């Protein structure tokens, strides 16, 4: 039996592991893919205190090595179920069953999909969720961005410097995002903003060729031929596997305050999958520290 099992090796989970090891507790980190989490996708972090520029990969590798050097154990298996009993928690992966005195859920979030037919098949064949990752494939091509938040605006701006033509498809009639980005976009000659509209169909052969866009007000359907569609409609927390046990809000986030306590004694939450104001690295690592400290306190009081 471990003292603490951390689920997810993103910034929150790995920081929790560091704090738990510093408190001399045994720690197992279970991660579905590889250490790092979402931040792997960014080539340049500019807002984390200590370094003005660092890539997401370098950032996470440093945190990973710090946690490992302190003695945290990492196993790459996806957690599919957690069971809670009075004196132990059981954590289940497709390969193994582990037990611990306390558990920290740090599963972060994943890209929200549009939910259209063929969307999964076309990822990497014209459909992308990351403009800074895949924008280079669309030099002098025609692309569309769907979404209306800051990410969508930033993606459209970024792509407007690479692509021949950029369509920005937004389901409302104005942007909630930063005013400055919206204003800059409106000045770009190669950007067309389509308001009050949804992408309703992906048209493809081997790869994406066109999209159908439906006007929400009058129902008119317009077909846009393009090479790439960038989907930036937000992220969803990865808490589905724990929904039977852990109380979630309507959007799927674990309901917890700054103390990172869930509704279950001995199960804590840290990072982007928790209800909170700001989802960034600093708040994720902050949560990791709090959750580990609370978990250690819980174990000590048993």
């Amino acid at each position: 039996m471990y003292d603490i099992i951390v689920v997810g090796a993103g910034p929150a989970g790995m920081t929790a592991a560091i704090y738990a090891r510093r408190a001399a507790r045994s720690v197992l980190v279970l991660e579905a893919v590889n250490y790092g989490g979402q931040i792997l996708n960014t080539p340049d972090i500019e807002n984390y205190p200590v370094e003005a520029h660092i890539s997401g990969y370098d950032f996470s590798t440093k945190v990973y090595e710090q946690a490992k050097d302190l003695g945290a154990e990492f196993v790459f298996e996806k957690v599919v179920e957690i069971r809670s009993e009075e004196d132990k928690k059981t954590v289940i992966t497709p390969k193994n069953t582990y037990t611990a005195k306390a558990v920290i859920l740090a599963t972060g979030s994943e890209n929200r999909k549009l939910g259209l037919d063929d969307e999964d098949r076309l990822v990497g064949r014209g459909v992308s969720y990351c403009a800074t990752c895949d924008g280079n494939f669309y030099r002098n091509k025609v692309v569309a961005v769907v979404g209306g938040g800051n990410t969508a605006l930033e993606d459209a701006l970024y792509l407007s410097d690479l692509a021949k033509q950029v369509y920005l498809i937004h389901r409302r009639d104005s942007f909630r995002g930063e005013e400055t980005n919206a204003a800059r976009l409106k000045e770009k000659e190669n950007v067309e903003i389509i308001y009050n509209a949804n992408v309703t169909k992906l048209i493809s052969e081997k790869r994406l060729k066109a999209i159908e866009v439906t006007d929400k007000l009058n129902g008119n359907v317009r077909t846009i031929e393009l090479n790439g569609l960038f989907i930036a409609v937000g992220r969803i927390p990865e808490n589905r596997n724990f929904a039977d046990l852990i109380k979630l809000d309507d959007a799927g986030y674990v309901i917890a305050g700054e103390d990172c306590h869930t509704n279950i004694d001995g199960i804590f939450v840290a990072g982007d999958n928790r209800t909170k104001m700001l989802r960034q690295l600093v708040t994720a690592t902050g949560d990791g520290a709090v959750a580990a400290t609370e978990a250690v306190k819980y174990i000590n009081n048993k």
Partner: protein
Amino acid sequence: MTIVEVNKDNFEDEVLKSDIPVLADFNAEWCGPCRSMKPMLEEMAKTNPGYKIVSIDIDAEDELAEDYDVSSIPCLVAFRDGEEVNRSVGLISRDAIAELMEG
């Protein structure tokens, strides 16, 4: 084996005409998930003599990327007897890479 760097000049020999199955890793230096996957691929190349793992830098080899319809990286394409048999896009786990190779 170690990972073989492949470009458009040696692609045919190294990949299409290979006697053993090939896993082609389309990647780029600036791509974090690609860098994250690299150590896993390096280790697998060492421990799986029955496979060849090749690396293709999509910035230098944009023609190859286009020929194989790669528009999102990391992209792993499994080849057998010169034919594509499997493909995955995005960061995947070590086990998922192994499955892709078993095809």
